[in-house]
């Protein structure tokens, strides 16, 4: 920071006549690059990012990577342990566990990521409306979120699924509905505190419409924490989906949601523990990966957050 150091003593001028425009401004690209770089600074962040990327790769390229089809039955090879042919063993119908889990990754990601994303978007809108407009809108939003948060996620999902039937699409809808209230509540709280910020008051004094303030000024600043919440909610969404599939309310067999694999494994748990073990491991890895990724994301976005908002507004 050479600019701030050498002020001459005699003329009584100091920090206050700095030329702000001469300070180096980070370019968009540099900012993005350093953001990704910061994700990898901590061991936790690196591990999390690697796991998340691996899951995405598995989800996209699953069919190419899996050694067998998820429904390939082999009655001669049932309930086997790990071997050269079947790296993770087989289930009670002789299907390769590794392949089933890989295909399962597709299902988990295809359900949980869109579900939480929808929850974020609709929750954000609700929270904005309630938080910024206040009054009756706010009361309504609070009452609605209170109502839906009174149901444990599984129970709500379960009840809705009984009504509308279970399919991949319905799973996404139901999980989105279960997570929506939390995003509405969080974004409402963020909006309420952002409203107090001085730059909002300044904009209002300049005559900006409420919509403009909501969209251009408040939203960018509250999206980042919501994104972090998203990253950390994905494991919960996966857990809900797995749970629903475990209960038989999720994807239909032979589709191998991790929950289905667990359920199959449970029925043969006394004979062969492999399905339960490896499916649990898959869940654990996915959870740890996203949680660490979320924490690294928070470390990157949080301090950055203040800088970004000021330059943009």
């Amino acid at each position, binding site marked *: 920071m050479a600019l701030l150091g050498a002020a001459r003593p005699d003329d009584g001028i100091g920090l206050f006549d700095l030329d702000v425009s001469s300070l180096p401004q980070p370019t968009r690209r540099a900012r993005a690059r350093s953001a990704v770089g910061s994700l990898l600074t901590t061991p936790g962040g690196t591990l999390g990012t690697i796991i998340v990327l691996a899951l995405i790769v598995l989800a996209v390229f699953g069919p190419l990577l899996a050694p067998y089809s998820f429904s390939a039955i082999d009655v001669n090879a049932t309930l086997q342990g790990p071997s050269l042919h079947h790296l993770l063993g087989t289930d009670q119908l002789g299907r390769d566990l590794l392949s089933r889990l890989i295909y399962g990754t597709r299902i988990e990601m295809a359900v949980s990521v869109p579900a939480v994303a929808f929850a974020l978007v609709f929750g954000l809108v609700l929270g904005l409306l309630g938080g910024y407009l206040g009054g009756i809108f706010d009361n309504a939003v609070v*009452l609605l979120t209170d109502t839906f948060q009174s149901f444990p996620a599984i129970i709500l999902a379960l009840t809705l699924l009984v009504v509308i039937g279970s399919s991949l699409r319905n799973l996404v809808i139901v999980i989105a509905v279960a997570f929506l209230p939390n995003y509405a509540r969080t974004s409402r709280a963020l909006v309420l505190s952002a409203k107090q910020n001085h730059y909002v008051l300044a904009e209002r004094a300049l005559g900006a419409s409420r919509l403009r303030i909501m969209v251009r000024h408040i939203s960018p600043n509250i999206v980042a924490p919501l994104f972090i919440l998203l990253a950390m909610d994905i494991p919960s969404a996966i857990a809900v989906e797995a749970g629903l599939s475990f209960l038989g309310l999720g994807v239909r067999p032979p589709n191998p949601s991790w929950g289905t694999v667990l359920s199959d494994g449970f029925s043969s748990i006394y004979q062969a523990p492999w399905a339960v073990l490896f499916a*649990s491991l898959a869940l654990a890895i996915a959870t740890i990966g996203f949680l660490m990724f979320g924490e690294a994301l928070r470390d990157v976005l949080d301090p950055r957050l203040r800088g970004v908002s000021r330059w943009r507004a």
Partner: protein
Amino acid sequence: MSLARYLGRRVITALVVVLIVMAFLASLDRLIPGNPVTYVFGPHANPALIKEVRHQMGLDVSVPQQIYQYIVNAFQGNLGINFVTNQSVASLVMENLKYTLVLAVSGLGLAVLVGVPLGVLAATKPGGLVDRAIGIVSISVITLPPFVVGLLLILIFAVHLHMLPVIGAGAPGQPADDLKHLVLPAVALSLGWIGYIARLVRSNMLEVLTSNYVRTAHALGIRRRKVFFQYALKNAAAPVVAILGVGLGTLLGGAIFIEVIFDRPGLGTLAYDAIASRNFPIVQGTSLVIAVLVIVANLLADVTYRLLDTRIQLGQAAGT
């Protein structure tokens, strides 16, 4: 505002929420694709019979009327009829409620009784061996959903070690046996929350220990042990009470799986069986009771928290 006023407002809000929950659940009836009656009786049932049953089930009135009827019935203790066995849903639910409650409450109790001391222990020497060990264990258990933990516990204790029973809730009339049957399920349910509470208490303690008032206590020569266990802990533990309401909700949700896995009676098993037979009134009734339980738990947790942390209770009035 005073505690009484706050309590009043909170109770009224809770009641309104209960009403909305009921309305929501009641209106779901209408969304069921197809005709629930034909589902039960078959598509070739006598149309007159279908009409009569529909009338009895209250399906031939307008939605608002149906909602109103449901709410009125609910407050009178009538949650509908299980149209498979003709039993009252309310009695079925009440019968099974106690098992689930025992499970959830033991899980919560375990989470607090084990989690808080672990968190305090970890905070005594941050960065030390004990702290790190507790940290690693906490994180690993948080990451697994309870039903997975349940499966793993079964794997370890029942399949390999043959130590604890994994089926049923114990022979009736034998509390000791009940307890034995409760151990694994309660542990499975609570493990995740033990880790969560331990982490929460630890980070709260560390934050409180750097606060100014702890510094003042040291500055005035108060014994370190007293500062730690009285001054710091009271402030650090208060937020834990607040999340217990949420905790009960999560545990009730997880209880379904635990009951199914461990073959225990309870609301979870009830709902699970009902799902299989598309027996919506039971699912509806179970949902309602669970939601009411959660609402009440949150209410109690909120009020208890305010009692503990008087700063919030009266701070707004003082305006400081």
